[in-house]
């Protein structure tokens, strides 16, 4: 498993420890299993929109001994709820998820965060909000 993926997994595991999001199931994006139709309860798809490598050299010059790898990731937590559960339920859950994410960020890797507008995913009889954030993942040891 690559370092940024490992870091993201650890972050999500820390998020899951919050009791406010205990009813949410977290799954990986674009899996090879059938989509849950209809969505039962709350489902969160963990998505990485993009990943960029950061150059962390002093003065921008590569040192001879190497440098700690660092990546900046644009992540999205796609939060789905059954359409019968209502928009206020989804909104409340999205806020709880954002709070849990901020509290779980012990390494200070999460930057700006945003909760998107509610969307309809009619194919799975659900409603959805995106909790998007930027995170910088760095190697622990140089």
């Amino acid at each position, binding site marked *: 498993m690559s370092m940024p993926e490992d870091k993201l997994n650890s972050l*999500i*595991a820390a998020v899951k420890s919050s009791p406010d999001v205990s009813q949410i199931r977290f799954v990986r994006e*674009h899996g090879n299993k*059938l*989509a*849950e*139709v209809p969505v039962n309860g709350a489902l969160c798809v963990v998505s990485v929109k993009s990943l960029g490598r950061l150059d962390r050299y002093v003065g921008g010059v590569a040192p001879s001994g190497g440098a700690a790898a660092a990546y900046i990731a644009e992540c999205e937590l*796609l939060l*789905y709820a059954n359409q019968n559960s209502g928009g206020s339920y989804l909104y409340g859950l999205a806020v709880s998820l954002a709070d849990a994410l901020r509290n779980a960020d012990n390494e200070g890797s999460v930057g700006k965060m945003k909760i998107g507008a509610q969307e309809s995913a009619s194919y*799975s009889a659900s409603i959805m909000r995106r909790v998007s954030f930027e995170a910088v993942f760095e190697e622990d040891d140089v």
Partner: protein
Amino acid sequence: MSIAQRIGAEIRRRGSSVTVQNGENSICERALVQPLRRAESLWRGHESVPEGLLTQSGYLFIGTASCPLEENSTVIIADGRKYLVRRREKYVVGDESVYVRAILTEFGEIREDEFDEHA
């Protein structure tokens, strides 16, 4: 014999055994379930969406007028496969319900949490 009784008898005679699940309640019925043919293609496969694979195929369900179907809730089990009722309507002649028809999609099972192993 009324038209509803005649068509109901025909569905029971020619249909296959299906299980209609509404929450905890399930009943056995006889109904016709067949792939829905569309003009652009006979068969459409799966599309990848963030939540997983989503089938693009639809199925047509024809059952007796008394068959209890709820949109986005009722699950049909036929020939070992599970379907979800997406749209349904009753065909009515005069004041009499003759039969019920519905569009089904493949039922996606409840997903397990995939981040438990990292806790």
